[in-house]
């Protein structure tokens, strides 16, 4: 007997509930559409938005009147090493300020300068000071306000703990809904929708060490790929150079190491006490570019000169106590940095070095869209980090949050226009039984296989070791084999110990693993094809950028095979360089 399911109907289904999802829901509701917004975790209490502590770009020109969206656009393309889709980058940088003002009107308490206008700070890679923040909790503040705005709108229904597994299409090929699991009950859902808007974010969790959250499994990339969408720039995974590796209660904190490196001029040492930056960038040392730092630290660790918890030391204890104390008094009263009381966690900057290392931070690539954030598949729209293009080969700090708001509003308007034209939509029922069989298959597997969590750990190590900060053709080929092997051998035999479907983490992880395998293969194949170094993609065997590679790699599924195709960059105003430095 076939499994039963619940049928739910809405105008627009939004997958993901954070910066992009919540903003899109508001826009759609204001266009008089009914919205069902689902998240596989809990709204405003999970995922990466709330983890954003500092900086949103907005070229208001308050701090420096020479600044404007045009300069911001140029900075963005420069940072993206000319691979940005310039149409998208231009829209994000020019519409960003409007969106940030709007958040302010709803109640986001932006930090203010003495003149009452937004306080703008200069961040890495930006020509002018144009980054806004709200203390050191910009993401939390955004979600506090966005959640309030969502709650005011009765057309929006939010469902937590709902995991969407695949899109469902009509016989004509439009996306007309999605298949989902209600994690709390284990019930299967068929959600019928006139349009679907995906805001599931990035895939940082594919990497052993990352600044994302366990939700960042790249579900949106994998579902889009399976539905026939194109993806772009998947090889460009941005790494952040320094984050705490130890102690566990401070792990993933970026604020303390940033403070020690910049304000206390902390020095980096490997396990042997060598100040290794001398060998990588003797001129700038610890203040070298982010990418240079990340690669240097990674190399030290990889070559066996790492600290006990797999990082390097960052130490300011060479400074006289009095100097450290005076900086702390001024910038971190009571030794409390961004809400973290260091002595509580046993850290005394006057004598203790920090154990730090690099982390996967952001996916520049994603689903290909046009300037209306349409995917080319009718009924299927995307916004936020799941989209590729605006950032090219690397992303400026603060541009990601800005992009969530701009893309959410445009994608929501495109989805609204589309949904308003649809009178009724019909899911091709055959897919439902196929998807049910796919999601339930793991319950039938015989004992003896690995648990999905164990394979996820293994995959995250493969990605970190072979498809990470420093890449070589040989290691990428090895990774393709390992990923392929996991897909054909280990994955089909995964076992889940709990037979109940009620909040069964292993079950959900088995489906996330299936998505992660697709995404891992995309990143690895694209990184292998791109025989140059550019932006955040660094090939040890091709350490220079190549003019031949002023192209984007597009990925799509064709006859069950992964096809990669380089295509010319979308250029509007900024000409591509004739020669690469």
């Amino acid at each position, binding site marked *: 007997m076939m499994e039963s399911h619940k049928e739910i109907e809405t105008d627009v289904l939004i997958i993901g509930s954070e910066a992009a999802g919540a903003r899109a829901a508001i826009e759609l509701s204001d266009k008089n559409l009914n919205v069902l917004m689902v998240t596989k*975790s*809990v709204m405003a*209490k*999970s*995922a990466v938005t*709330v*983890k954003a*502590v500092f900086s949103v770009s907005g070229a208001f020109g308050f701090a420096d009147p020479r600044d404007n969206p045009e300069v911001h656009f140029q900075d963005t393309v420069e940072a993206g090493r000319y691979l940005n889709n310039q149409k998208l980058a231009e829209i994000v940088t020019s519409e960003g300020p409007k969106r940030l003002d709007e958040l302010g009107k709803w109640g986001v308490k932006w930090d203010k300068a003495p003149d009452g206008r937004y306080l703008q700070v200069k961040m890495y890679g930006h020509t002018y000071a144009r980054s806004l923040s709200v203390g050191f*909790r910009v*993401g*939390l503040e955004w979600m506090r306000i966005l959640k309030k705005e969502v709650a005011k709108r009765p057309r929006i229904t*939010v*469902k*937590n*703990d709902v995991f969407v597994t695949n899109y469902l299409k009509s016989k004509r090929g439009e996306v007309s809904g999605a298949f989902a699991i209600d994690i*709390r009950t284990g019930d299967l859902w068929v959600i019928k929708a006139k349009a679907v808007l995906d805001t599931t974010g990035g895939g940082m969790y594919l990497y052993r060490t990352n600044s994302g*959250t*366990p*939700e960042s499994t790249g579900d949106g990339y994998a579902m889009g790929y399976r539905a026939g969408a194109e993806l772009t720039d998947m090889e460009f995974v941005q790494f952040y150079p320094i984050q705490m590796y*130890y*102690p*566990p*209660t401070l*792990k*993933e*904190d970026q604020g303390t190491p940033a403070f020690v490196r910049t304000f206390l001029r902390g020095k980096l040492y490997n396990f042997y006490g060598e100040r290794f930056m001398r060998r990588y960038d003797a001129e700038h040392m610890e203040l070298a570019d982010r990418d240079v730092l990340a690669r240097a630290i990674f190399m030290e660790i990889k070559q066996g000169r790492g600290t006990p918890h797999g990082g390097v030391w960052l130490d300011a204890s060479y400074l006289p106590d009095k100097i450290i104390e005076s900086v702390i008094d001024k910038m971190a009263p009571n030794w409390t940095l961004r*809400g*973290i009381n260091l002595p509580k*966690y*046993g850290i005394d900057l006057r004598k203790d070095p920090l154990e730090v290392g690099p982390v996967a931070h952001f996916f520049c690539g994603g689903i290909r869209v046009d300037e209306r954030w349409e995917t080319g598949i009718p009924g299927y729209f995307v916004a936020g980090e799941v989209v590729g293009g605006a950032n090219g080969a690397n992303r400026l700090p603060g541009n990601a949050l800005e992009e969530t708001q701009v893309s959410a509003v445009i994608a929501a308007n495109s989805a609204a226009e589309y949904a308003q034209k649809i009178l009724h939509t019909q899911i091709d029922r055959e897919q439902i039984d196929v998807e049910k069989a796919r999601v339930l298959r793991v319950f039938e597997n015989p004992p003896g296989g690995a*648990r999905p*969590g164990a394979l996820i750990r293994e995959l995250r190590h493969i990605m970190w070791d072979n498809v990470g900060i420093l890449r070589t053709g040989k290691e990428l080929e090895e990774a393709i084999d390992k990923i392929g092997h996991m897909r054909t051998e280990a994955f089909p035999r995964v076992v889940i*110990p*709990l037979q*109940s479907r*009620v*909040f069964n*983490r*292993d079950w959900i992880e088995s489906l996330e693993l299936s998505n992660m395998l697709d995404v891992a293969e995309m990143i690895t194949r694209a990184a292998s094809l791109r025989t140059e170094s550019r932006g955040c993609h660094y090939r040890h065997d091709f350490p220079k950028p190549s003019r031949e590679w002023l192209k984007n790699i597009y990925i799509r599924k064709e006859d069950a095979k992964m096809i990669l195709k380089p295509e010319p960059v979308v250029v509007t105003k900024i000409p591509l360089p004739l020669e690469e430095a």
Partner: protein
Amino acid sequence: MEMLAVKVKRYIPEKSDFEVQTFQVPYEKDMSLLMVLEHLYEEKGVHFRHSCDVGLCAICIMKVNGKNCLACKEIIHGADEIMVVEPVETSQPIRDLVVTLEKNRDR
């Protein structure tokens, strides 16, 4: 190896009731409660929520020795520490330490 004793109040949805179980976890210096729970998930299938792991999202809220706290920021100073972990009581239990985290309205 030093072992840490952890008492966990688990909600068993199949029985619609709680069960208190005591587990032994290998102790590591300065370990967090999150690490203990990750170990218990792997070894004993104990379910719990976590996300940001840096004390911001608050999804890992639970009751530790009678007080609500965040598992990611809870340091365990020694193997002799007494640990009683329970789900928070402000919302509906789902499985083990997982609760709905919604106060009133239907989700």
